């Protein structure tokens, strides 16, 4: 592991050519606010900076360099053409406070994306404003609350969440002031419908479901679930995390859902990772349309215009200064337009085909699927509980060994209810050759587990760092770098 850039710092060395001009100009900052000591910055040449960060970047593990089957996260390829279009000058230099008549191009794209999302979700209204999936969830449950409250139905204080849910679901429900009621999953991966019937009642504000679920299976009782919740006056929230699995095949609106968020990075291939920027549009059924967060793009005879609280008085309001992350909205729109209706269906078909192909290969090679009787949707789970028992090899060891072979590890130990699990999502953008290579490597690792388990126990062997001490990292978190500059020593 190479050192930090401070390790090559030398007092007095700098790259003046790159310095911003005008920094010494007169300013009005009061003297007591000016710093007295030199800021702690590395003193390095331009070439040293370039070399240091280029070398660091070469240690990156990314979708541009390697297969990244991180289940539940959908690490799929982001087409370059879409980035190029979002970088058109008219978009890039457009100010969010421009007048409506000077914003028609961007607003047209946003309006059309709203319309496209309505069609693919089977919903009646869409707002693009949530800045990411988590904010979309918050907006969605806030709308559920607004709906009940407007009807004077204020005794509903429970949101039902399956035990297989993304952690954000119970967190969102709690954030919106609801009590979280957990329901179990049956051995087939479906929600336990009997348990649901017992729990659903006059206190139920709604249920939050991901379908296909985080277990990688489509809940076959979805209509029954919708009927149960609606019959007690609750609403259904669809966590759109796995929408890519069903795009163009079945629509949340038709399944009976009332509100959902869409993770644009997962389904519409906007950039993902590094903490954003994100996009988490919400889509709603007829009865929740008045509550959509603003701004929304409306269409009039004279062109597109912003709809705000003035036009939508029952809206839950704004979630940020402007409407979402403009660049992400544009990319999602262009991706949708590039694919067209027929292409969208292909996303779901290839995501599902790739997952089932890989699942079948791994099953035949001796791995244990968590739900052997079920077809996979876009992702699937294998459990290494037998390997853990017989070979004393756990999911972490296999994940770390995969890194040695140049594959990103799948999601591990999630969902929590499957012991020693790996959640594998190949996505629709991978070729058969890549899937074959991954399967071959998994088979090889299983063989190593039998013949030379130490290879797995001590993996990774070929990365810049070896096995990390996770307990120490969690217990003694140290994020502040406070260097002693070599020149000071």
């Amino acid at each position: 592991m190479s050192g930090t850039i401070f390790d090559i710092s030398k007092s007095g060395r700098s790259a003046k050519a790159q310095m911003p001009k005008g920094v010494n100009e007169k300013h009005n900052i009061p003297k007591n606010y000016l710093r007295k000591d030199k800021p702690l910055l590395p003193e390095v040449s331009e070439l040293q900076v370039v070399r240091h960060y280029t070398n660091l970047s070469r240690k990156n593990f990314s979708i541009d360099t390697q297969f990244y089957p991180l289940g539940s996260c959908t690490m799929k390829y982001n087409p370059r053409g879409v980035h190029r279009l979002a970088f058109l000058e008219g978009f890039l230099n457009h100010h969010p406070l421009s007048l409506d008549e000077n914003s028609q191009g961007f607003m047209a794209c946003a309006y059309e994306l709203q319309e496209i999302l309505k069609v693919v979700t089977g919903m009646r209204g869409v707002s693009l404003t949530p800045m990411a999936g988590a904010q979309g969830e918050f907006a969605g449950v806030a709308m559920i609350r607004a709906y009940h409250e407007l009807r004077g139905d204020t005794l509903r204080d429970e949101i039902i969440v399956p035990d297989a849910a993304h952690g954000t679901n119970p967190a969102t429900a709690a954030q919106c002031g609801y009590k979280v009621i957990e329901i179990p999953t049956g051995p087939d991966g479906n929600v336990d419908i009997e348990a649901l019937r017992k729990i659903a009642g006059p206190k139920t504000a709604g249920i939050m479901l991901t379908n296909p679920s985080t277990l990688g299976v489509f809940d076959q009782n979805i209509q029954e679930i919708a009927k149960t919740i609606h019959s007690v006056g609750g609403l259904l929230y669809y966590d759109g995390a796995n929408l890519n699995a069903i795009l163009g095949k079945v629509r949340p609106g038709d399944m009976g859902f009332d509100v959902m968020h869409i993770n644009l990075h997962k389904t519409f291939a906007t950039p993902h990772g590094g903490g954003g920027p994100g996009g988490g549009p919400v889509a709603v059924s007829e009865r929740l349309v008045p509550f959509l967060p603003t701004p929304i793009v409306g269409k009039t005879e004279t062109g597109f215009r912003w709809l705000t609280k003035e036009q939508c008085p029952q809206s839950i309001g704004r979630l940020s200064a402007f409407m979402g992350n403009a660049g992400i909205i544009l990319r999602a729109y262009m991706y949708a337009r590039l694919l067209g209706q027929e292409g969208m269906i292909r996303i779901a078909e290839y995501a599902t085909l790739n997952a089932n192909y890989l699942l079948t290969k791994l099953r035949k090679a001796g791995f244990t699927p968590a739900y052997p009787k079920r077809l996979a949707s876009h992702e699937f789970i294998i459990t290494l509980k037998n390997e853990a028992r017989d070979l004393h090899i756990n999911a972490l060891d296999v994940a770390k060994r995969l890194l040695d072979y140049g594959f990103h590890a799948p999601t591990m130990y999630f969902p929590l209810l499957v012991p020693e699990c790996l959640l594998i999502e190949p996505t629709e953008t991978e070729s058969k050759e890549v899937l074959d290579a991954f399967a071959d490597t998994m088979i090889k690792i299983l063989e190593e587990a039998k013949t030379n388990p130490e290879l797995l126990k001590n993996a990774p062997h070929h990365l810049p760092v070896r096995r990390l001490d996770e307990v120490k990292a969690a217990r003694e978190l140290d994020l502040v770098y406070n260097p002693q500059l070599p020149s000071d020593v």
Partner: protein
Amino acid sequence: MTNIPKKLFYSATHEWVRKDEDVLTIGITDHAQTMLGDLVYVELPEPETGFETGQECAVIESVKAAADIYCPISGEIVEVNEELLQNPQVINQDPYGKGWLFRLRPFENDFTNKLLNADQYTKQVASEAH
């Protein structure tokens, strides 16, 4: 094989209960600590707080997951194992001994019929490994 001592009582949510005179000592089972993996953080209840049966009363966090601890029997907390705050891995090393979480004075005396015995808990653990 997971260790399930015969003389303890268990909850379906993987807490164990031991009766010491009029106070109950509570911890998490060997099975639970194995499933969670290396523990890194423990949040314990305040002494003198009362909890209902099944109410969340503590939180433990491992490198893999965070989990709520449910009060197996309603009662008032009389003592918590402060050593865990500094060194949560004691639970991994000795779940039935030094890794105890808290002691409580139960609100009702006849609690054993609400808990599982070792055989019942063993069956439950086996059925969970589907």
